[in-house]
Each structure stands twice: as C-alpha cells, then as structure tokens.
C-alpha cells in the first residue's frame, strides 16, 4: 500500500498532517493526453492530475484512445476499453492485463477542438496531395503526422491513405459522413465508458470538456455519483458566430447536469453562466498552473536565429486571432525590418494566413514551422523576444504561462483567462493591432522593458503552481462528495 499519502506541505511540522485521510477515488474522463495533444487540454490534464495525485488522490483517467507513448506514472491511464498505457500505473486489484495498443483503425482525426467541418478539411488536405510533397506545415500537422508516422498506430501510410481515399471517394456524402463521425465517436466513447465503468468503485466523476460530457452525465445518472465538469473552453470561444449548435447543446447539457462546474478562469465562468444559464454559485474557478522550469537551454547560442523573434504558438484558428498577429507584424516590419515572426501551429486558418502573409509581401519575415512540441517548442519559446497571444476569446491560455516559464515576456489579449492571473504582461484588446504593434516595437527596441516584464512575471508564475489548483479541486471534490474521504 502506498497510501495514505501526505500533502507535501508544512515541511516544518514534525507530524505531517494528511490532507486526505484515505484516498479519494476519481474517475476522470478526458480526450487527449500528452504527448498526443492538439491544444492546452492535454497539458492541463497532465498538470492537474500530477498535482492531485501528489495530494493522495487516486485517479483513473480514461481517454478514447491511447497512442502508446503516454507517460502517466501518477495514475491509471486507460482507453475506454480499459486498455492501459504502458507508461502508466497498473490498475489495482483484478483487472484486465495491459494489452498492446491496437493497430487497426485510422487514428482519431477528432481533435477535441475540431468541429466536423475542420475534420473534413483535415482529411481532404491529406488526401489531396502526394505525401512526398506535403508542405512543411502539413508535415507537422498532427493529423498528417499521424498518417506519416505510421508507427503511431502501427499502420503503414499507404494503407491509411487508401482507407481514407476510399472513404472520401463518396465525395458528395463526405461532409455528412464526417459530421456524423465526430458525434459518433463521442457516442461510441459514451457507450464504452458506461459499459466498462458503471460497475466501478469511485467517489466522483470529473469530465474535461464537451466530448466527455455525454459519457460523464450518463455514468453519473447510472451510478448516482456526483459529477464535476471541467470547462477548459467553450464552443463559443472556439468558433464565435460559427459555433456548432450541437456542440453548444452538449456543453449546455453537461454544465446543467453537473453538480459543480469548474471553469479555468473568471472569463470562462462568466461565459458558462451567460451562454448556458448555469447558476453562478455552481461555477467555480480553478486557474491552470504551470511547472516552473529549473533550467532554460539557451538555444540562441546553438542555432542561428535572427536578432529579434516574435512568436505565436497555438492553433491557427478563429479563436486564437492569428490574423491580428499578421496585421500587427505588417505594422512592425516597416520600422524593424529584420524581425522574424513565427507562427507555430496548424489549423483551418493556416492557408489563408499564409496567403495573407504572401499578399503583404512579408514572406521573408515569417516562419511557419507547423505544429511543434518537445524540444522544438522549447526552442521557439526560448529564442522568442516576446510571445504574442492575440486570442479573440481565450478561456485560459496555458501557453502564455509556458512562455513565461522560459523567461519570455508575453503580450496577451484582454479577452483571456490568463490575463486574470498575470499582472506583469502587456495587455491589449485583440483587435487593437496598432497598440499591439506599438508595444511590440517598444519591447524589441528596449531590452529593459522585456527584462522587467519577464522578471516580474516569473515571480507571479511561481505562485501559479499546479498544487494550488489541486487543492482547490480537492475542496470541490469534498464538497460534492462529503463522505468520500472515509
């Protein structure tokens, strides 16, 4: 037995006080887990579960699919068929033995942030090209990459493409088909979760974002266990006027049925209340955290980067405001011609963004490395003079905190949750391109401004560790399940 565990706090107290007397068991439903992520959701889930586990919370985290490279030693990580991650804990007691990851299906194109339209486009983009001539951006697209790196699923590229082609050959019905598929996937997940976990012992169900809400609500009704839904973003944020009505409906369904809703910011709390009519007392804010970095590799020394780098890291979608980044750049470049603007990420707006850059004649000032993670991402964060997050509507914006942890000053839109927790950032309205350019020029010209920003923000980020988020979450668990700790 490795519990009861004790809170890592009060190191001065001789007899550590257990925060939880016996482990509370949480069934957590998610959609993605690092390293296979499309956005901040997976990163947030990893951070939160690690910190919860350090507080002695027992977690079983269920995602629709595993890719085989997930590392989650702090909890049980399985897919909806209970196949566990080789990198995670094994379930206690009697349970199915870990199975090799199946290799027969097309990987889930269903990014948690994709809607059916984007899904269709992603598939179309892959199949309409020869693989060898994939653009660098597409080569880094998680979807395309999943296809190229056949090893992920153990399938070879040709058969994957063949299968996709077959599917796409019924051209006219493609849209309908894939539109249905996204929701079919959600439905399949729901059915699997119920069949596999309805008999499980746990205290609370904790579901992350809309794709898991139907499963979570159904399971809660079946088992009578309290339900917490965790809103990392809303369809309204992601797609604005083009919000998919069915997704919005699922979000509303989930937030209304939950005992408590966790919002990642006050910004999101207000959205949940406004769009879904949830009573303010049921929506609680738990800000995301970040693990501060001990060491920052100086990539600048190793590689040849231009003197000034301004970075955008995130999905290239309506929500993230990439077009404002480009317009801002077009105002900066006449004054500082040698700045390199990096757009790291992919998304449905990437082609139009690239087109706009070309139209403005700024190709040589731009770099599109596509979706990056790991060392590549670290390199971009650390060589950037300033990180820009011009989001139109950003529930939180965890990459801004990551940038800070690399001592990179940040400029963020006022329409973001992270603006609530970081005082020492440059803050603008996402549409105020002139202001953004004004601030960025000054930040590039005056290293003192960058220095003070980074130094002060770093101090703030130290207070934003995941442990604080975990403690708040545990309070919410105990609130919905008062006897859980017995």
């Amino acid at each position, binding site marked *: 037995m490795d519990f009861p565990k004790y809170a890592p706090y009060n190191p001065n107290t001789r007899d550590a006080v257990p925060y939880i007397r016996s482990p509370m068991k949480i069934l957590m439903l998610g959609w993605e887990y690092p390293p296979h992520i499309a956005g901040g959701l997976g990163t947030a889930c990893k951070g939160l579960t690690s910190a919860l586990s350090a507080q002695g919370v027992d977690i079983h985290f269920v995602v629709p699919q595993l890719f085989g490279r997930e590392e989650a030693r702090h909890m049980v990580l399985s897919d909806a068929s209970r196949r566990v991650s080789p990198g995670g804990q094994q379930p206690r007691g009697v349970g199915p033995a870990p199975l090799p990851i199946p290799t027969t299906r097309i990987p889930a194109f269903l990014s948690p942030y994709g809607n059916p339209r984007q899904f269709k486009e992603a598939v179309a983009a892959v199949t309409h090209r020869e693989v060898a001539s994939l653009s660098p951006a597409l080569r880094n697209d998680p979807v395309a990459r999943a296809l190229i790196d056949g090893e992920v699923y153990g399938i070879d590229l040709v058969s994957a493409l063949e299968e996709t082609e077959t599917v796409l050959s019924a051209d006219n019905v493609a849209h309908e088909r894939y539109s249905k598929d996204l929701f079919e996937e959600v439905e399949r997940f729901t059915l699997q979760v119920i069949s596999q976990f309805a008999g499980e012992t746990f205290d609370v169900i904790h579901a992350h974002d809309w794709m898991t809400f139907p499963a979570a609500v159904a399971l809660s009704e079946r088992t009578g266990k309290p339900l917490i839904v965790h809103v990392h973003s809303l369809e309204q944020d992601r797609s604005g006027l083009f919000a998919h009505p069915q997704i919005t409906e699922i979000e509303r369904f989930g937030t209304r049925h939950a005992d408590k809703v966790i919002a990642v910011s006050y910004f999101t709390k207000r959205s949940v209340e406004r769009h879904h009519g949830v009573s303010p007392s049921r929506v609680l804010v738990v800000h995301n955290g970040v693990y501060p970095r001990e060491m920052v590799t100086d990539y600048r020394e190793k590689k040849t980067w231009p003197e000034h780098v301004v970075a955008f890291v995130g999905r290239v979608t309506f929500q993230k405001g990439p077009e404002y980044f480009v317009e801002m750049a077009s105002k900066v470049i006449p004054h500082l011609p040698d700045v390199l603007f990096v757009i790291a990420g992919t998304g449905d707006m990437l082609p139009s963004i690239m087109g706009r850059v070309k139209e403005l004649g700024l190709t040589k000032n731009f770099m599109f490395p596509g979706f990056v993670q790991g060392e590549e991402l670290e390199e971009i964060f650390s060589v950037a003079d300033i990180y820009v997050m011009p989001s139109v509507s950003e529930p939180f914006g965890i990459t801004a905190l990551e940038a800070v942890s690399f001592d990179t000053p940040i400029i963020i839109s006022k329409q973001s949750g992270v603006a609530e927790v970081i005082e020492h950032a*440059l803050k603008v309205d996402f549409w105020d391109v002139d202001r953004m*350019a004004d601030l960025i020029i000054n930040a590039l010209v005056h290293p003192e401004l960058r220095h003070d920003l980074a130094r002060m923000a770093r101090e703030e980020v130290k207070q934003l560790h995941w442990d604080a988020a975990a403690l708040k979450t545990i309070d919410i668990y105990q609130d919905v399940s008062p006897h859980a700790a017995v």
Partner: protein
Amino acid sequence: MPAVCFYFQVHQPYRLRRYSYFDVEKATTYFDENLNRSIMEGVATRCYLPTNERLLRMLREHDGAFKIAFSISGTAIEQMREYAPEALESFRALAETGHVEFLGETYYHSLASLYNREEFESQVLLHAECVEREFGQRPRVFRNTELIYNDEIGQRAGELGFRGVLAEGVSDVLGWRSPHFVYRVPGATTKMLLRSFKLSDDIAFRFTHRDSNDSQSLTPDRFATSLHALSGNADVVGLFLDYETFGEHHRKETGILDFLEALPRHTILQREWKFLTPSEAIRLFSPVSELSFPRTTSWADTERDVSAWCGNMMQRAALGEVYNTDKLYAGCDLSAPDMALARETWRRLQTSDHFYYMSTKGDGDGVVHRYFSPFESPYDAFVAYMNVLKDINARCRRVVAERDRRPASNE
C-alpha cells in the same frame, strides 16, 4: 519654547497621454489635456480651495501665532493658472497674510538633482523666479522633489543661496539622534530641518473618519498629546505633508479639515508650543550638530530611498535617456519652431511622476503607485514615455542638423 513647522507639498505633473510609436514625428499632442484639466479642477475643488479657505481663516484668527509653508511646483502653478485660476488666487491670498513661506524646488519637480547639475540649477532658479513673481517672495529654504536628499544636494542648495534645506528624518541615517532638532549640512552653514515621519504619517496615513468613540481614531487632542509628550526633548517638529492629504486623499467628509482647523486653536498652542515657518525655525534654533546622509533618501515608499523612481530597469533606461539628451537642448536656437516645444516637453518629461508610474513594486507601495498612475500598467507608462522622448529628440536632431548645414552652404 518648542515649535511645530507645518509644510505642504503642492504638485501636479503634466500626465502623458497614451502616445503611440506611430505618433512619432506626426503628433505633437503629448499630454492628456482632458485628464490634466479634470484632475486639476477636481483637486482644486476638493482640496486647494476649501483647505486654503480654512487656512486663511486660521491665519487671520491667530494673527501671526499660526504659520505654514508651501512648496508649489512650477508645473502645478502653470496648470492652476490654466485650469483653476481661482485656486492660484487663493494661494496668493494666503501669501498676502505674511505668515506663509514659499519654499524653493525644481520647477519641473524633477530628478535633475541626481542626474544633471546644470539642469538642476537652471530649474531651481526658474522656480525661484516663478515663486517671486506669483507670491512676492524669493524662496530661502530648499525642499527637493519628494524630499529627495543627500549630502551633495545639501551642498548645492547652500551654493544656490538657500539658508536651509528639508529632508526626511530617516531612522537609519539618524541613528540615536532625534529628528526634532535643527542640524547642519556637513562642511557648510546651510541648516537642515527634518520631517518627523511618525507624527506626519499619523496625519497622512493614519487619519480615519472621526469617531470620538473609537479610541484608535486620530483626534486633535490625541495628536496634541503625542506632540506635547516631546516637550523638553525637541526644538522643532517638522510636519511635512502632501497638501492633497486635506480633502483629496482624505475627503472632506472624514473631518480632516476640521481636524486641521482644531489643531492650533485648542491644542498645539497650549503649553508653550508655537508655530514657525522653516526660515524662522532655522533662524531661531542653533544646529545641534552636522548631519551626514550616507545614502540618498526621500519620503517615498517604505524604503525612503529613490527606488520609487529608479528601482527597475525601465525607470533607469528612461532616466538615462532623458538626461542623456540634454546636450541636444543646450545651446539650441529656441526660436526654431519645433525647438521651444521640444525643449519644454523635454523638461516636463523630467517630472518625477513619470518614473513613479513605471514602478513595478508590489504590496502596499505598489498600491500607492497605481493609485496615482493614469496608466493601466507600468509598461504602458514606459512605452508612452519612450515614444514621446523619441519624437522630441527626432525633432530636435532635425533642427540641429539644419543649423549645422546652413553655415556651410553660406560659405
């Protein structure tokens, strides 16, 4: 016979608007005129006019037994003249009683004392002339911006003809010594008056709504009791305050004006205490000793040093930049169309408040910095400042370049 020396700082900066990088070499509206006007009008209505009225009544009532001193910055005088002439008039009325002393400082309430000797002296003289013109008296005692002081500033004040200088009674400088005596600048005859920070801060920060039932609230009686406790162990107690304490930081409804009015009448003037102006105090009392300041002090923030204005890299960059460009303005032909405006703007940019807004301090001091700042953040303050500086420097360089070209073409 111990004395109280009341002195009030009156200052308003020219606040910058959010001048953008894209305004550089295009727009010359650097200052937020609407904001400056509304702040001046507001402070005049809430503080200058009502408090001056009370003081005038008190000065007449006590007929020479009650005295006060002001230092009014040049930028405050200018803005009063423009936005609240009746306030300036009311200060003149106070001056005419003959019981009010006006102290010297830098016209622009600047940090020139720390960065540029020539500019410092020039601004001090400019201010002295302005005070003489407005209030009919030449300042004889010097009070530097926000009580910023070190030995060198004391020396220079003496060299400029001042007989006395004011400073914060900082504990780590004073050590075992009391702030309630007159001291002397080392190696000079210039005398020093120190701020009694405990008693001054009682009024500035610890005054709360008057409630006679609350044993913690500051009443005239309680204040007089702590003052009278110093009898026999004090020559002069310096109560140096921001004038806006009366009516602005503490609104009239708190009873702060009644508190002020009651102080001499019922309390301080009993038991042999009296009021003196700074000039009278340094004439009457002999210095007990020299007092050397090993560091630069001020009355700002918990550190009582200059970190409120020079604490972070942005502030030092801005200060370095503004005081580096003085050569551009020295010896320039001020009749050139852009030059006069550029130089005047350059001088207004030296006002300490601009750097105060760039402070990134947290906690209690940070709250005070933010209370005064018209900007959303210290970074916004820095950006607007550097943009304006860039603009005026560019204009100035153009004029200089033209001047340098002209004689060559004539030959």
